[in-house]
């Protein structure tokens, strides 16, 4: 019997695909925001706010935060399981980082919600 040591998906293959699928969303979002800065010579408050008031940008932001939750959850798990040998410490750190990532999601959601 092989122990299943996986972080977000049901198995290693699932994790592998989740990291890559979320990465593609994060690249697309990064390019979108970078594109905004490239085509806007000077970013004013009105311009900045109208960009995030756009429904497409709101949905993209929340999608990116969901992708980040999955992507970083697996990434943190990979790093912790390589370097932290104590099971208690590893689980504690994993918990703290997972909660932090959830806070990011909710915080970002409320931020774009209120624009």
């Amino acid at each position: 019997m092989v122990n299943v040591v996986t972080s977000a998906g049901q198995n290693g293959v699932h994790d592998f695909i989740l990291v890559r699928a979320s990465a593609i969303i994060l690249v697309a979002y990064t390019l979108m925001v970078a594109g905004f800065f490239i085509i806007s010579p000077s970013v004013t408050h009105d311009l900045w706010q109208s960009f995030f008031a756009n429904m497409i940008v709101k949905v993209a932001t929340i999608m990116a935060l969901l992708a980040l939750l999955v992507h970083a959850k697996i990434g943190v798990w990979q790093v912790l399981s390589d370097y932290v040998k104590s099971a208690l410490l590893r689980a504690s750190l994993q918990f703290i980082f997972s909660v932090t990532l959830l806070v990011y999601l909710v915080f970002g959601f409320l931020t774009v919600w209120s624009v």
Partner: protein
Amino acid sequence: MKKQRPVNIDLTTIKMHPAANASILHRVSGVIMVFAIGILLYTLSTSLTSAEGFAQIQGYLDGIFFKFIIFGCLSALTYHLLAGVRHLMMDLGFFEELSSGNTTAKLTIILWLVISVVIGVWLW
């Protein structure tokens, strides 16, 4: 079964080739990003709440400390993204040989440095 093979895990005696440097930088930049996202989200939230908040962030960005923090976040993001794209290309079967892998590793690091300079110039 116990294999009697020579094992060297002393990192100080191991010569890092370009692909190894690209790999560890990807990991380091990933860990930095976990914290950087928090800073970027705080910046986003404050700048979107009100005109005062936006001006506040602009004021922070005039200071060298916050500017450097934001530069660090964007530079780490740039590296993580570029190295991630390299990974995706390797998943598709490209640049998997020793020499081509090292070439793309060098290219990734050079491209990262160039884009970082561009971001630095844009911020300052």
